[in-house]
């Protein structure tokens, strides 16, 4: 499979060179790559899903290492692994159900239900889906090996081939759905706009987030009239782009500087922002400047609402954030090199120049400053994020990924 090899080496190199950036784009590309990996994977009949899991994990590790700052990559990898485990499990539950002839009807129902729905939690807004609970219960005593012993020592070896094929096609379907979800997550988020934005409200946002834009536009389309303050988001000033886009949609937009946020916050009814990643504790990693905005909102008791898609949901806890999961960007975004070239001269007398420029890309906003998360599967409070994570990712996949963080 030369083309899959090329694909596999292509995306990490793109990620490394920072040619693919942004959670949405990286998530989509990662999912597509993983789909190709699953498609190309030649499954040894005996080991079942285990080898597939191994293959996906290998590619995943490459991707994550390529740019650890793009957390969406890891999220998608873990989610795909989770899907594989779930799919691998569902035929087993069938068997278990048949063998046990258990009285727990609902278990079988649910298994069937999942077979028909393929994907675990993405489609319906319901959170506490029973199959997940089952999975958790089953895995608790001997998590990873359990899965393997079941699949490898499959008594119904005759069924294995069939089930393997079936598994693969089911998996492809599931991953397709995941990609579909990633593509449509904005609409999912935007649907909830009507419930949150009310007539004649004043909204404040910072920088430019596609989710926020869709969210606001959705409310506008439903004939809500409101005003938007846009903090311009130094140093890239992407807020200006948002202002232009909103203007085209006929929304009243007022551009302010980042530093004027506190002055304006008292006139604002709600702050809506997009983020880079949602951490497991309910805090967020967001463009630099958001922490200040969040503190201002807290001070004036203005609701601070974060719009995020499920692929931004990260299973990591924010340890040592400012360095590990931050990106120090080019200082020339901040100031013009040529103007300061005489200040940044190390050649004169004192060994190093006194002028330095530090340009971190992200801020960490702790969960206590956030009022609400609006995701494509509904609205949640920060304290509930850990539950979503349990739904989305298998606990087996977490430890290896969390190692670098610890």
């Amino acid at each position, binding site marked *: 499979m030369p083309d899959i090899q*090329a694909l596999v*080496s*292509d995306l990490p*190199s793109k990620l*490394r*060179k*920072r*040619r693919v950036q942004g959670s949405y784009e990286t998530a989509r590309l990662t999912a597509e790559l993983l789909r190709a990996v699953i498609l190309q994977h030649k499954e040894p009949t005996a080991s079942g899903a285990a080898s597939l899991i191994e293959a996906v994990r290998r590619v995943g590790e490459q991707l994550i*290492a*390529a740019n650890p700052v793009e957390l969406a990559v890891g999220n998608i990898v873990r989610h795909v692994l989770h899907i594989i485990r779930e799919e691998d499990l569902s035929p087993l539950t069938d068997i278990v159900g048949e063998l046990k002839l258990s009285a727990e009807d609902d278990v079988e129902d649910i298994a069937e239900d999942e077979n028909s729905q393929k994907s675990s939690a993405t489609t319906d807004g319901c959170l506490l889906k029973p199959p997940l609970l089952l999975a958790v219960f089953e895995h608790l005593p001997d998590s990873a090996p359990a899965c393997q012993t079941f699949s490898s020592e499959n008594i119904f070896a005759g069924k294995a081939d069939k089930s393997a094929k079936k598994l693969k096609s089911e998996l492809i379907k599931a991953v397709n759905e995941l990609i579909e979800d990633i593509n449509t997550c904005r609409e999912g988020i935007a649907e909830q706009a009507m419930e949150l934005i009310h007539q004649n409200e004043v909204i404040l946002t910072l920088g430019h987030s596609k989710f926020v834009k869709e969210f606001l536009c959705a409310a506008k389309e439903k004939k809500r009239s409101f005003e938007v303050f846009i903090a311009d988001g130094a140093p890239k000033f992407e807020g200006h782009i948002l202002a232009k886009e909103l203007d085209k949609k006929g929304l009243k937009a007022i551009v302010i500087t980042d530093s004027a946020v506190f002055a304006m916050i008292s006139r604002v009814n709600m702050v809506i922002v997009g983020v880079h990643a949602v951490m497991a504790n309910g805090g967020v990693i967001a463009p630099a400047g958001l922490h200040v905005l969040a503190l201002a909102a807290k001070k004036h008791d203005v609701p601070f609402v974060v719009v995020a898609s499920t692929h931004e949901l990260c299973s990591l806890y924010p340890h040592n954030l*400012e*360095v*590990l999961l931050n990106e*120090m*960007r*080019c*200082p*020339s*975004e901040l100031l*013009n*090199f*040529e*103007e300061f*070239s*005489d200040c*940044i*001269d*190390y*050649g*004169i*007398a*004192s*060994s*190093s*120049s006194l002028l*330095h*420029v*530090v*340009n971190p890309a992200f801020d960490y906003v702790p969960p206590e400053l956030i009022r609400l998360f609006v995701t494509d599967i509904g609205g949640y409070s920060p304290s509930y994020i850990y539950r979503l994570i349990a739904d989305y990712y298998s606990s087996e996949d977490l430890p290896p990924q969390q190692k670098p963080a610890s």
Partner: protein
Amino acid sequence: MGAQKKRAAAAAAAARVSEDPDDLARQPLQAILLADSFTTKFRPITLERPKVLLPLVNVPMINYTLAWLEAAGVAEVFVFCCAHSKQVIDYLENSEWFSQPNFTVKTIESHNIISAGDALRLIYEQNVALVDIACLLKLVSLSRLKLATCYTLTICFLVVLSFKIHGDFVLISGDTVSNMSLTQALQEHKERKKKDNNAVMTMIIKKSKPSPITRQSRLGTDELFMAIDPNTKQLLYYEDKADHSKGTICLDKMLLAENPSISLHNDKQDCYIDICSPEVLSLFTDNFDYQHLRRHFVKGLLLDDIMGYKIFTHEIHSSYAARIDNYRSYDIVSKDIIQRWTYPYVPDVKFCGNRATKLERRGICFTAFNSEIEQSRSAQVGSFTVIGYGTKIGSNSKISDSVIGEGCTIGSNVLIEGSYIWDNVIIEDGCELRHVIVCDGVIMKAGAVLKPGVVLSFKVVIGERFVVPAYSKVSLLQQPTVHDSDEELEYADNSSGTVEFSSIQGTADQSNGEMTSESSEAHKPKLGTGGVGYIWSICEGGQEEEWRHSVAPIPEDKLTELSEAMDDDQELVTQDRTALSTSGELISDSNASEGDDNEDSKDDSVYFEKEVEATFLRAVEENVKVDHVILEVNSLRLSYNMTSADCAGAVFYSMMKLAIKTPHSSAIGLLTLYPSPFSMVASNAYPIYLSGELQQNTANIITTWQKLLKSYLLEIDEEIEIILKFEEMCLESAKEFSPLFARILHILYDKDILQEDAILRWADEKEGADESDKVFVRQSEKFIQWLREASEEED
């Protein structure tokens, strides 16, 4: 030559045919990367390893260039290797650059290339060779060469086939670090090319103020002057070797005449990234004397108005581009990389096969760390430091603003500041390193000290407690004794890398074996006990220039010295302006030009006087007829644009000089008797001092040459001029005459050379003068009296 031109024309035509817009769009962009700088600035390191493979923040330089080219959308890169070509090719073959999708790297190897010009010529030849295959093959068959030769030739051509430049290309050297986007510059270049076929090159420039004190940019290169048309961005003038001592630069007047507006910059930095049209290659072939890309090619194009080729500039603002030209720029660019100006080509981003590094917060700023380093708890690693994989740092060591390579062992109580330490270096306890470069495999024994600006080449051993003096370069290889004055040629005398490598080994082995004998030799400075290596004597450029290009920051005292010198210079310049005025071409205000004129005329009159004297003396010696002398002096008068008064003065001066020079036969003054009552009186007044012979000589000469003198005495003004001249001579150049003034004046009167009016008017003019000026008037008072009376009598 004619054939070559034709070929060039054919190639150009072919290129033009294929240049319809669609073609331009899908033509993959190509680049020529010169993996050799053709200079010797990085010696002695470059004797053993090519410059492009020297680590820059732990990554070989060429990787920065290649990574940028790839990111900028270049599809094909021809890496041109000369010195140490084997090392470069080996490195590239083992790197990941050969396996990149949509990015091909091809190497061209040549050993007898000594300049960038040669390299481009070779590429061009290979390019056009395609056209000539058929014809050459015919030639081969005609000359009935052996079959084997035919085969090799064909194989050569097949190789050549792959090095085809088919469109615009980027010309860059392998030591350039940049993160700029080429799209816009390329677009501009192509649009210009479409409009004007002569726009062959776009040069990337960047603003960077040179230091007013050292007159060099922050990258350690000389101050660069560029004249650019502000509207079209055409480059009109390029001077990187301006003579600062003069304080002026010269612009061709035609530049000003032809271009309505010119902006002259001294704050632009040349990034050495050029977008060239294929014609550039043929230009190099047509002009064999083009060696240096800037000094010859760019200046040559700018001066050559026959072909009318034009160079344009593209200025980049926010993005970074710099070329590592000397040790100072190595230092500066390294620091820029650590401070992330070159993002995304920074230590913690894996842009090529480098190892993963992570940042750690140190104070306010960040330090790049590799995951596996052993660091003692008491060691202090400061900010802006990069530490390579597998390095061990002992207790109480302090490291700041430095780059440390892989696998180094650093002992305890070591101080490292602003230094660049490459791989596998062993630094024992208590060493001190400030602003130095230490190459691979160096061992520093305990307590050794490196003063700022030191460069230790590969595998040098510094003995215990040895202090290496500032700015010295130490290498295992001996300094080449024969020094070619042309720096372009110097670099190429290295043979291929393998030979040198073995020689290194040889020296190392030998030095290990015969340590004592080696150190006993007198001419080799020792490097302490157990030290191995030679300290190179600084000869080229001299000690004076060493600090300019070294890794060490410019020392304070040098700066103050320089700024004082500069103040002096400025004073000088201002003095010049007022008193003498410089011959500055740029200064056009009337005052200065007037000054020029005065200056010139003064000079001229001195020359004129000398010429006249020479002519006169010759005439006396060769007995030339008076008429002929008059003719000659007249021609001189015309060529120097002098008045006849000047001539009269000059001729008189020469005559008087002659009189002095004529040998005195006796020292005793004899009174010559003149049939005038006055002479008696005068001689009575100064009987002793009179050197009668001198007077006699003068009289004789005046008699002989009176006709010559008279021919210039058209009016009374000229006669007065003569008297004044004579007065001046008596005061300054020929004091012998001073006692004879009145007498000679009388002689002149007698010979009808001076009229009485002239003498009287001279006397009248002197009436109001100072006492000191009146010496001669008083001396000749009686004569004047007599003249006055005589004229009254006549009346």
